[in-house]
């Protein structure tokens, strides 16, 4: 567990998971103004990478996400 008040070493993963959640809300048509602002901020953050967002998306949605990716590729 990270110590309160101390810097964390997992911020890139945490931010990428937030980014992934925002993208999932975008797909569901449930974006809020706060999501849009935060998403744009995270898009500029170098520690938030497509690889980490992708991993988070897989983690959240598993098979469902893989099937959606396959559908998008087909389309």
């Amino acid at each position, binding site marked *: 567990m990270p110590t309160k008040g101390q810097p964390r070493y997992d911020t890139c993963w945490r931010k990428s998971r937030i980014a992934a959640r925002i993208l999932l809300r975008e797909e569901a048509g449930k974006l809020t*103004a706060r999501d849009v602002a935060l998403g*744009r901020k995270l*898009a500029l953050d170098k520690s938030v990478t*497509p690889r980490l967002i992708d991993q988070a998306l897989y983690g959240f949605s598993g098979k469902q996400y893989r099937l959606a990716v396959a559908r998008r590729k087909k389309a």
Partner: protein
Amino acid sequence: MDFQANNIAWRSPAGRRLDAFARSLPPEPKLDITVFGSTSIQLFVDEAFLSVDIDLFGSEESYDFLLDFVEAHGLTKAKAAYYIQVCDPYAFKSSADWRVRAVETELHGHLFRFVHPWDVLVSKLQRLEEKDLEAFKLVIAKTGHPTEHEFLLHLQKAVDLYRPKFDEESARGDMFANTRELWKILWNKEIDVRAAIIRPALARAVHDPEPPDPNLKTRLANLKLPDRQ
């Protein structure tokens, strides 16, 4: 070849020597001993396959204990005609998953692990002296395996042995040259080691061949609020 614990040739010279060795060990500490080299071939393939020693290693922690024990019981090269060679765990290099195929059995309260003969052959290929070549010929003659294709796939699991050696290791044999030599002798063929062994093995080892969607961050940057009806 029936490579199972109930098929170990305990009446072979190596079997008898190992049994006596295990019986003479004190009950504590409980030892975990891996037997490699020609002994596995004698125990599982041909009792008549002779070797001058039994190569084995224990855990890092038991290394000194085993060395002292073998010395105290007169089982070293200096004192016994058929001796026990206690090796460092790093002395045995073979395919990455050799432990999966090894046979384990309890002997007088200690765990003995026997390396599969094919993995012994891989370790012998690093040296490939005349006696090592004889081991290949014997295993194939007695069991019909490994075939050329089987051994090709097996060597792919030992791809790291083909990496360049440290300067300090230069005395050891050349896996590239030895593999080519082996193919000529056993199968009367030339082999392209890189194409047949190294490249396929490296391709299989690629962790994640599918790159992530590169547009994820672009999508984040261009988020728009949904139209409210």
